[in-house]
């Protein structure tokens, strides 16, 4: 860990530039990418395209908000995609086979399924003792299998009255605000409040900073980690319901990319404003940036390898910046 300390500490220019550029790069990049894509493809800046980007970004943003809670405790959660999938698939299967004749009820059962997955992750991590990233990797595989099983491997389209089903995904509140955005504002505000202004949030960050010290101080780290995992899975469940609503259907491989995307968005958010600490505003901004770049590349008809490469570059640079920022703040 100490082998690389010579990078920033002995070179003031490097330190300042990592400090300034590293903390504001998200905003700079978002603005410049918007300009870039706007210039290359004027259709990019049209209102309905931008609103579409906003709606899509809300999926990653809501999942990222939940993940921020878990990553604040220092653990990585790779089960975002599977939680989204299981929530959407459970809801759709219940509605499709008329086991439940109530949309709201089915929605709650779907979110409950995701929450159960979060509790299972917590069980694997806290009781059995598996490191969180391995536990969530394995549980995401099992849950993906369950999702395939209950949907018989097919995508279920138009399972319910379209107006009700697509309300959360495609309706515009007061004609201008997309519903996903409204949900994001409500949910994001709650998570932001919890993380920044309540004891719960402070304890989560404390656990992430030094778990042993928390144990000695008498904080029940297991209870708080359980809460964090459950919150994360519930958020991902909500995000999955909205995704199903947006595409008017649910399938077992809808949310596969979100496994990496949610983690990436949260880590990128950690480079914003604060010194390498995960936070909600950064996550939201990162979600917008990632969706913007993806949409822009689709509009420019970029090839698939370019999409993979850009995604990898964004992830690796944000991880490196978070690492360097944190190492710096330790020297202070």
């Amino acid at each position: 860990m100490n082998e690389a300390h010579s990078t920033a500490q002995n070179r003031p220019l490097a330190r300042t530039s990592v400090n300034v550029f590293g903390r504001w790069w998200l905003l700079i990049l978002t603005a410049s990418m918007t300009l870039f894509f706007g210039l290359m493809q004027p259709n990019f800046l049209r209102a309905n395209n931008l609103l579409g980007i906003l709606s899509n970004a809300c999926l990653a943003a809501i999942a990222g908000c939940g993940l921020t809670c878990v990553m604040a405790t220092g653990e990585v959660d790779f089960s975002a995609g599977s939680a989204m999938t299981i929530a959407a698939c459970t809801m759709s299967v219940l509605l499709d086979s008329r086991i439940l004749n109530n949309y709201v009820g089915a929605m709650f059962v779907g979110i409950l399924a995701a929450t159960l997955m979060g509790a299972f992750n917590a069980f694997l991590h806290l009781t059995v003792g598996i490191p969180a990233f391995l536990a969530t990797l394995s549980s995401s595989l099992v849950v993906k299998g369950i999702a395939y099983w209950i949907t018989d491997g097919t995508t279920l389209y138009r399972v319910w009255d379209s107006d009700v089903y697509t309300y959360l995904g495609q309706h515009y509140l007061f004609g201008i605000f997309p519903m996903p955005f409204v949900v994001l504002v409500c949910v994001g505000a709650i998570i932001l409040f919890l993380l920044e202004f309540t004891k719960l949030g402070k304890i989560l960050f404390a656990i992430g900073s030094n778990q042993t010290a928390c144990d000695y101080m008498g904080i029940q780290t297991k209870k708080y980690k359980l809460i964090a995992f459950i919150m994360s899975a519930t958020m991902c469940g909500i995000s999955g319901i909205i995704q199903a609503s947006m595409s008017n259907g649910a399938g077992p491989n809808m949310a596969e990319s979100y496994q990496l995307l949610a983690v990436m968005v949260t880590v990128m958010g950690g480079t914003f404003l604060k010194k390498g600490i995960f936070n909600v505003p950064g996550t939201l901004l990162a979600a917008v940036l990632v969706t913007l770049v993806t949409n822009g590349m689709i509009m420019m008809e970029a090839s698939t390898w370019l999409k993979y490469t850009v995604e990898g570059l964004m992830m690796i640079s944000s991880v490196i910046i978070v690492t360097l920022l944190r190492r710096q703040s330790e020297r202070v």
Partner: protein
Amino acid sequence: MRKVENALSKQGHDCKKPETVGQWILCHFLLLVGLGLALLFYVLNPNVFSSFGITSILSTASIQGIIALGLMMELTTGNFDLSIGATAGFSAAVLGAIMANASPNWYIPAVFIALAAAVLVGLLNAFITVRIGVPAFVGTMAIRSLLSGAISFLTNNTIFYSNNWGETYKLLGQGKIRNVIPYCCLIFLVICVACYIFLEHTKTGRYIYATGANRSAAKNVGIPVVRMQVLSFAIGALLAGIGGILHSSRNFQTSVQMGIDLQLPAQICCLLGATYKTPGKYNVPGCVVGILLTTIITNGVYGTIGSSIYIKSLVEGLVFMTAIGIIATIRQEGLPKVKFDI
């Protein structure tokens, strides 16, 4: 399980020299489970391991085993590498791309170039993990995306094959000595023995184990921790490259999906192997038994229940979960706490 471990160590016996039958069963239970499951599947469906199938199954198992050994080298120094499958796929894609445009005489130099590309990836992983200090599993996950991009570029984002590849391309993957023993199995055996001798009987191997067991203690004792980690990444990537080349040679194609498919069996096998003989410590015999068990389970399950996508995901996930659950409970200190803090 913890009580048993305690009991074993209290009596001064570790799994290298079990004395009673009970202790022997505990040390080797992975092997016994494997044989038991093989018997079970055979009873359920006598055709599941037909003699044509056996060489095919062994070939696939050998290839997965080589990649698993590569992953094991990196796990032994304490780095969980999520990009080992993608490294294998990348190496195969490089070879495929070169051979599509060159005459078959260029096969051997092309293989060297592909393996060098794999080692370069390993060194990149080492740079990010060791020099910059990014936690290995996050850094390699990002590298995995980059590698997928590179593979997608080299294969034109399709299942890539070329008529220019010729017979030499197929030789290693599909050939057999005297029509009985596949080359893949031979290569796997050679690599196994080499890894075993390297890890157990050389000074560098001991240093690698020490680095993984307790990095700061090793550093304080004077072991060149950085060099050991870089070495483990390089060797791991090299083995993954070999595995990837054999896999693409066997299936006569390269694609992005290949890299994704190769990752999980390697992980499962390594983690299962850590429960064998030396509980909690990754070892080569464990890897071999692990790959046998993984192969038996997957082929047996597919043969009896059917191989739809959900069965695959469910079975792999459950086996993975059981493996790490067992290690987490067996090891006195559990699995190393890996957190995203630096």
